[in-house]
C-alpha cells in the first residue's frame, strides 16, 4: 500500500532510474496526481491515505506507469539506424559469400541457390527496393516529422556498400565474369535507374510512415 502522493513519486523516481527526461516527467506526474487527489478527496471526503487506493486503481502502480514510459524509450534513432545498416550489410555479405562459393568452391547447394536467384533478377530487385521503402516507412512511423535527418543519414550510410560494390565492378576489381549471367546491359541500366530512385522510394515510405504514425 502506498500511503501518499510523495511515496508514489519516490517509487516512480526509482523505477524510472534516471531515464531520459525523467525529471520533467516526474514534475508533470506530480502536478497530475495533485489535481487528481484533490478531485478524489473533495468528491468523496476521503483523506489522502484512503484516496490513494482509488488514485492507484485509476493511474496504475508506479512500476506500471514507469514500464509504459520506458517502453516508449526502447526505440532510439541509433538502434533504428543500425538495424537498417546491418540488414543491408547482411544482404551484401550473403551475396558476396554466395558468389565466392559459387566461383571458387564446388558446392552443389550454393550452385543451386546461385542459379535460382540469378533466374529472377527483376524479382530480387523489386524486393530490394521494398527494403528501402521499409527503411523510410519505419523511420516515419516511429519518429514522424523529426525523423527526416535520421532518414537522410541512415539512407546515405546504408548506401555505402552499394556504391562500393558498384565501384569495384565498374573498375573491374571484381572480375565481371563473376556476375554472369546477371551483367547484361539492360540489367546494368536497371541497376543505375534503381539506385537513382532509391531515395525517392525511401522518402515515399517515410511520408507513408508519418501518416501511419498517429
Amino acid at each position: 500500500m502506498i500511503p501518499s502522493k510523495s511515496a508514489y513519486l519516490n517509487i516512480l523516481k526509482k523505477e524510472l532510474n534516471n531515464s531520459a527526461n525523467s525529471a520533467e516527467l516526474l514534475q508533470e506526474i506530480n502536478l497530475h496526481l495533485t489535481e487528481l487527489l484533490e478531485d478524489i478527496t473533495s468528491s468523496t471526503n476521503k483523506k489522502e491515505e484512503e484516496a490513494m487506493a482509488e488514485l492507484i486503481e485509476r493511474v496504475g502502480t508506479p512500476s506500471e506507469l514507469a514500464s509504459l514510459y520506458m517502453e516508449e524509450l526502447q526505440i532510439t534513432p541509433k538502434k533504428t539506424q543500425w538495424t537498417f545498416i546491418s540488414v543491408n550489410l547482411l544482404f551484401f555479405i550473403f551475396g558476396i559469400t554466395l558468389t565466392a562459393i559459387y566461383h571458387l568452391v564446388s558446392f552443389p547447394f550454393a550452385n543451386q541457390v546461385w542459379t535460382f536467384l540469378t533466374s529472377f533478377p527483376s524479382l530480387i530487385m523489386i524486393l530490394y527496393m521494398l527494403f528501402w521503402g521499409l527503411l523510410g516507412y519505419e523511420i516515419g512511423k516511429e519518429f514522424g516529422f523529426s525523423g527526416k535527418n535520421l532518414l537522410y543519414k541512415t539512407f546515405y550510410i546504408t548506401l555505402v556498400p552499394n556504391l562500393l560494390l558498384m565501384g569495384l565492378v565498374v573498375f573491374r576489381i571484381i572480375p565481371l565474369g563473376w556476375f554472369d549471367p546477371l551483367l547484361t546491359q539492360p540489367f546494368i541500366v536497371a541497376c543505375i535507374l534503381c539506385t537513382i530512385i532509391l531515395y525517392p522510394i525511401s522518402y515515399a515510405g517515410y511520408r507513408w510512415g508519418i501518416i501511419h504514425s498517429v
Partner: protein
Amino acid sequence: MFNRELVKGSTSLLLLQLLAEKDMYGYEIVKEMEKRSDKAFQVKEGTLYPALHKLEKQEVIEAYWLDQQKGPSRKYYRITENGQEILRQKTKEWKSFVSAIEKVIGRNGYDSV
C-alpha cells in the same frame, strides 16, 4: 466500456483533435475527454503520457511550461502545423472508415448482431 485496442488505436487522434481546439495540460485533457465522451473514454495516465511524449517526439505537438498565478508551472501541449496536417488526413480516414462500417452494419435497419 469500449474495446481496449480500439480506444488505444484512436487515442492519438483524439488527443490531436482536443489540442487543435486549444492548448491543454495532461490532467485537463483527461477531464475533457471524459466530459465529452460521457466518461466512456477514461484515458489512463500510463497511456496518456507516453502517447503525448511520442506525439511530441514526432513533432506533431509541442510542449511548453506556463507559470500559474497560483501554484507551480504546468506543462501545456499544443498542436503544430505538421500535426494539423496529420489531423486533417486522419480525420478524413476515420470518417470514411466509420461511414463504411455504418453502411455494412446499419443496412436493413439491424441494430444489433
